[in-house]
């Protein structure tokens, strides 16, 4: 996820006064909690990316421990996996995937870019919808399956329920 507020994007954590103010405020809050350590789990790979990119852990109060939590399907999908989906789409294969996945950039382009150039990319809310779509068409449909346990089980569930022969899974689980 990317900050949409331009002032936030420009800040880039390089404003010393703001940074000092924030670290001071954090230290006060941690002291108020009164535990050592205070452990907080974040919930998104983009959080970890921002923490690592800007070296934020080094600026956190010693008593504050920020733990990596689960990444969402978007955050934990590697670029080469996006590239595979894009390559299939550009070869004319019809692709279905989660809405948040289509905007994720690959090496050359995202699935949304491929779609803009004429590739067929269908956005589905769930893998079950992709199976329904496959039932309605006569050509192969590849579901670009991303995410960890919470979405992998859904993909497994439809595979076990005898999907149509034209339904395929490109698994990034």
């Amino acid at each position, binding site marked *: *996820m990317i*900050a*949409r*507020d331009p002032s936030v994007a420009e800040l880039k954590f390089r404003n010393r006064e703001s940074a000092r103010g924030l670290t001071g405020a954090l230290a006060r809050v941690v002291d108020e909690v009164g535990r050592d350590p205070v452990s907080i789990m974040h*919930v*998104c790979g983009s959080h970890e990316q921002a923490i690592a990119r800007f070296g934020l852990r080094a600026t956190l109060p010693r008593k504050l421990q920020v733990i990596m939590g689960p990444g*969402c*399907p*978007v*955050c934990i999908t590697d670029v080469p996996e996006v590239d595979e989906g894009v390559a299939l789409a550009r070869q004319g294969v019809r692709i279905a995937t*989660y*809405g*948040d996945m289509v905007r994720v950039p690959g090496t050359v382009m995202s699935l949304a870019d491929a779609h803009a150039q004429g590739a067929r990319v269908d956005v589905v*809310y*769930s*893998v*079950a*919808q992709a199976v329904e779509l496959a039932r309605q068409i006569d050509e192969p449909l590849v579901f670009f399956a991303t995410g960890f346990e*919470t*979405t992998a*089980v*859904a993909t*497994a*569930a439809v595979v*076990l*329920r005898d999907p149509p022969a034209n339904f395929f899974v490109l698994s990034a689980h």
Partner: protein
Amino acid sequence: MCLGVPGKVVAVDGLMATVDFWGVRKQVRLEVVDEPVQPGDYILNHVGYAIRRIPDGEIDATLALYEELLQRAASEDDLMASDIRSEIQGAADDRS
């Protein structure tokens, strides 16, 4: 799609449940949920699948947490809240 969303089971038909998410009803599949669910139970939904039956003792605290996040969405541009909103709106019955 980072977060799952809790909802109240309204009806169960085989492996398909009708679930109410803050007034938005949608179909949720039950293949992978950890325990049997029945109307009145609360489940955690992620991309159309119930991934957990929320234990009775955790329902109030869970709903309170999400309500706090959703209220924040009304007042500011909160990415986590908008993620929850899109999960609630996604594949709602009136859109499918």
